[in-house]
C-alpha cells in the first residue's frame, strides 16, 4: 500500500510539472466535452450521456495509460522502476490508481463545467442535477476508467506495437458498450449492468496485466 502510494505520488508530481501545452490540451478537451455533455443534459437522461461518458473516460484514461505504461516501457525507464525496490504489484497498482484518480478528477471537472454551461443556458440546474443522477454517472464513469486503466496496462505489455493501445482500448470499450446497447434494445436490463460489466472487464484485465508484469514480457515483448 505504502509502495503504491509512492508511485502515485511520483506520477502526480510528474503530471503537475507537465509542460503548459499539455494543460492547454486537457483544458480544451474538458471545455469541448463539457459543452457536449451540457447539450445532452437538457435531455434529462443518463442514457443520453452514457456514450459520452464512457468515451470521455477512454480518451482521458487512454492518454494517461499511454504515458504512464507505454512510454515508460518503450523508453526503457520501466526497467529502472522495476528494480528500484518496489514490488511489481505495487508499481502496477500505483500506476492504475493514478490513471483512475486523474481520469476521475478530469471527468468530474468536466461534469462540473457542464453544469455551469447548463446554468448559463438558463436551465433549471437542480432539476438537471437530479435527473442526470450524479451517483449513477460517477459509478459508470469510474467503472469505465478502471477498465480502461487495467486494459491499458495489459495492452501496453501485450501489443507488439504498444502505441496502438489507446486504439485497441477504444475498440474493446466500443464492443462492450455496443453489446450493452444491443442487449438493452432487446431485453430490459438493469442500469447497473454496464458498470458491472466494465468492472468485471477491469478485473480480468487487471489479472492479465499482473500476470504479464511478473514475466519477461513486461520489458521486451517483441523478442519473445
Amino acid at each position: 500500500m505504502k509502495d503504491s502510494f509512492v508511485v502515485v505520488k511520483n506520477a502526480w508530481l510528474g503530471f503537475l510539472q507537465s509542460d503548459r501545452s499539455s494543460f492547454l490540451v486537457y483544458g480544451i478537451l474538458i471545455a469541448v466535452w463539457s459543452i457536449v455533455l451540457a447539450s445532452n443534459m437538457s435531455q434529462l437522461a443518463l442514457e443520453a450521456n452514457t456514450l459520452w461518458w464512457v468515451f470521455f473516460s477512454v480518451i482521458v484514461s487512454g492518454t494517461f495509460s499511454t504515458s504512464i505504461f507505454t512510454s515508460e516501457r518503450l523508453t526503457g525507464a520501466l526497467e529502472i522502476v522495476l528494480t528500484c525496490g518496489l514490488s511489481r504489484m505495487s508499481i502496477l497498482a500505483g500506476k492504475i490508481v493514478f490513471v483512475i484518480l486523474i481520469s476521475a478528477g478530469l471527468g468530474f471537472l468536466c461534469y462540473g463545467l457542464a453544469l455551469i454551461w447548463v446554468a448559463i443556458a438558463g436551465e433549471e440546474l437542480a432539476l438537471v442535477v437530479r435527473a442526470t443522477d450524479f451517483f449513477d454517472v460517477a459509478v459508470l464513469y469510474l467503472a469505465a476508467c478502471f477498465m480502461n486503466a487495467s486494459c491499458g496496462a495489459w495492452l501496453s505489455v501485450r501489443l507488439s506495437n504498444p502505441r496502438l493501445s489507446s486504439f485497441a482500448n477504444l475498440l474493446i470499450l466500443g464492443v462492450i458498450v455496443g453489446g450493452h446497447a444491443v442487449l438493452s434494445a432487446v431485453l430490459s436490463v438493469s442500469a447497473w449492468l454496464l458498470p458491472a460489466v466494465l468492472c468485471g472487464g477491469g478485473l480480468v484485465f487487471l489479472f492479465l496485466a499482473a500476470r504479464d508484469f511478473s514475466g519477461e514480457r513486461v520489458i521486451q515483448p517483441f523478442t519473445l
Partner: protein
Amino acid sequence: MSDSVIQLQGIQKSFGANRVFHDISLDVGSQTVFGLVGLNGAGKTTLIRILLGLLRPDTGTCSVLGHDPWQHAPDYYRQLGVVLEHNGFWGNLTMRQNLSFFAEAKSLCGHMVKEYLDGHWAGQPVLEKKQKVKLFSRGEKMQCALCRAFLGWPRVYLFDEPAVALDVKAYDHFCALVRRAREKGATVLISSHQLDAIEDLCDRVGILENGTLSSLGDAPQGAVRWLVRAEARQEYASIIEEMTGGRAEHRDGAWRFEIASGRKDIVPAIISRLVAAGCIVEEVREEKDSMRESIRRHYGSQGT
C-alpha cells in the same frame, strides 16, 4: 575475495531460435569489481538483465546475495545499485525529486540521503540544477544515474556502460565512488566497451563471447614480453635471440622479445652482454599488455 555474492551456474538463455548463452558460470565475491566485456550483441546486457530478474534463464541457477533475482523480492532490489542503458528518470521532475522517489523506494530516510549527497556529491553542479531532468545533457543524466545507483551504498552494483558521456571530472568521481564502494565491501559488476574504465577499476575481467563467459586472466601465459630500448643493430638481435631462444623484433625504437615465464633471471645477463657489445640501453622493462591489447589479442586468437 571472501564469500560468493554473485553466483551463476550453467546459465542458458535463448530468444526463440537465437541461443544467447550456452553455459554461463560466474562467481564473484564481495569487495570485488568485475568487468564484463564482449563484442556488440555478445549478451552483456542480457546477463545484467538476468541478474536483475528482468529475464529468466532457461536453465541454470542464478543467485545474488543469496536471492534468486527472478523472485523479484523488493528486499533484493533495495540492496542493488543499477545503471542501465536508459537512465529511467522522469523528465518532468528535477534531479532531487527523482532521487527522492528512489530513496523512498529503497526505504531510505531523509537524513541518510542528505548525508550521502553532502558527503559525496557536494559541489557537483548537476545536483544543484533546478531544471527538469529532460533538459539535462546526456552526461548530466548519466551522473544523476550514478548518484542514484550509489544512494544508500548498496551491497551490489550492476552497471551497464556507466562511463558513457562522462567528462573527465565526472569519470574520476565515478571511479572514486566505485573504489569507495569496494572499500565498503561491495561487489561491482561493470559491463562496458570503454576498456579504460574496465582497466582502471576492475579486479577481474570476463569476456562474453559465443554464449560463454571466460576470464581474461585464464589465458595461459607461456611467455613474458620484454622491452629493451636500444639501437637497431643486427648483432644485438643475435645476442637476444641466442639467449632467449626466440625471435627479437625492433619496433618503435626498442627491441621486443619473449622469455619463458620463470626465466626472468636471464634478463640481467642479456643486458650485460648487450652493454659489453657496445649497446647503449636506455630502458628495460617488462611489457605488459594494456587491457585493450589483451582483449585485441584475445579476439585475434579467436579469429574474430
